[in-house]
């Protein structure tokens, strides 16, 4: 623990190529998470993201066992999960329980697959708690490619997707194809989740995909400002988390989640302080009914 906050060691480590690769991967993830996060928050999909991540873990565990790249397994698992959740839980009233059912099964299956695996134990734990160092320059290409794909598709569907997310009734009336957008967005979330699984791990994907956006949505209702803030928050959390984890050699997740949580608390504080200020402005009091 005495290595905590060792600045010199941290600087030395930052010079290492694999650390820089990790930082680059994290920065890419930060942008994806920041852009997609506000939409996840608006569509109330936090639990779906968690469920998708667990299935990304199952896919990654299967890939580990088969000797295929973990990143492919994570993407495949998460996308299948996203589609399955979309198909089984089309009704909002059922969504919650469907996610619970699929999530627990996927996690159990993943545990079984890992039990079969006889390789390094750190690879197993890495999936659960994240191990950004596992992203090397070879799979960085896949990583970056997936990120570009997600951002590219989002750029095309962003406006109708936002419309469908905040105002589904009128969006449907105006001819926005909700039936296409909902599964498509689920797939994008699946890919983004898979990226998160490789860096912060299954259990903590929410810290990047949901927390920064949830924080941003506390302080602004403007879609543009929310997206920018959410990217900034996600970058601060993920890059800051990696840098802080270097010297002690600790898993990055603890730092990433802590930073994102602190940002979230700060945003709630700002929101609270603002509501007190505006609360003092005299509100027009509606006259009591004259009946």
């Amino acid at each position, binding site marked *: 623990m005495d290595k905590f906050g060792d600045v010199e060691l941290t600087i030395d480590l930052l010079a290492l190529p694999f650390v820089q690769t990790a930082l680059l991967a994290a920065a890419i993830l930060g942008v994806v998470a920041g852009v997609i996060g506000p939409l996840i928050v608006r569509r109330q999909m936090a639990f779906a993201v968690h469920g998708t991540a667990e299935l990304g873990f199952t896919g990654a565990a299967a890939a580990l066992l088969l000797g295929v790249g973990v990143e492919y397994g994570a993407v495949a698992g998460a996308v299948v999960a996203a589609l399955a959740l979309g198909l089984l839980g089309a009704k909002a009233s059922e969504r919650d329980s469907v996610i619970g059912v699929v999530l627990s099964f996927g996690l159990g299956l993943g545990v079984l697959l890992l039990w079969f695996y006889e390789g390094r134990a750190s690879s197993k734990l890495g999936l659960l708690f994240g191990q950004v160092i596992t992203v090397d320059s070879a799979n960085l290409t896949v990583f970056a490619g997936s990120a570009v794909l997600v951002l590219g598709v989002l750029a095309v569907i962003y406006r*109708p997707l936002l419309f469908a997310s*905040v105002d589904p009734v*009128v969006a449907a*009336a105006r001819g926005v194809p909700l039936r296409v957008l909902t599964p498509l967005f689920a797939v994008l979330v699946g890919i983004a989740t898979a990226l998160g699984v490789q860096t912060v791990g299954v259990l903590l994907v929410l810290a990047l995909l949901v927390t920064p956006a949830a924080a941003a949505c506390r302080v602004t209702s403007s879609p543009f400002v929310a997206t920018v803030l959410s990217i900034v928050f996600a970058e601060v959390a993920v890059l800051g988390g990696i840098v802080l984890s270097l010297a002690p050699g600790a898993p990055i997740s603890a730092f990433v989640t802590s930073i994102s949580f602190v940002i979230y608390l700060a945003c709630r504080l700002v929101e609270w302080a603002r509501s007190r200020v505006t609360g003092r402005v005299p509100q027009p009091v509606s006259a009591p009914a004259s*009946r």
Partner: protein
Amino acid sequence: MTTQPAVRLVDASLRFGERTLWSRLTMAVQRGEFVAVLGPNGSGKTSLLKVLLGQQRLSSGTAEVIGGASAIGYVPQQGASEAANAIRGIDLVGLGLDGQRWGLGLRGMRKRRQRVEEAVAAVGAEQFAGKPFNQLSGGEQQRLRVAQALVGEPSVLLCDEPLLSLDLAHQQAISELIDRQRREAGTAVLFVTHEINPILQYVDQVLYLVDGRFRIGRPEEVMTTQVLSELYRAPVRVVNLDGQLHVAGAHSAVCEDEPHHVHQAAG
């Protein structure tokens, strides 16, 4: 007024299981025409709008909105879209303009902002359009809903109880605004309401739905003691009080859940 239909229903019937909402409904709404759709709860007023929006299939017959979904402006019933999470009123109005289009919409931003601001100003919502939509009062939300529906200059405007939760002054302002829209831009208006008086002076045609039966005609043709008694199959009286129509009936179906206009006038 040129006769150029914007909405056409031919022999349209809608049944849910045993229950017939309406059958063999044939009507056309011309450009610039203002049609009020009246009737007790459950008579299929909202379902009629859903049919025109393409969200509800007819049991038989055809329904057509000339120009399709992109030609429609829609004011949903309040509370129909409760989400509106983390979004400002002005963003919702903007999405009404071009939210159905692909892309980020970075081109023509200035023009877009101007049109959105005009639409917001037209409903007198400048003061609160920048606030989070879900923190606004029902009346404020409703005015922004009207702005959202009108900003795209639709050729057909479908409104589901747009005056609900508005005070009298705003009921008049919104009704006038919709009237101006159909006069100046030739928008055909289908206006579902339980209360005809705020719009009585603008209405060209009334479609009155009761228990699978309906009557179409000018207000003075339909809103009569004789016609409504036939429709309700119960003694109903239509009383004209200073140009306001009041429907009084022995039958409980006539009395609706919504606050009655007599009380509103007194309040």
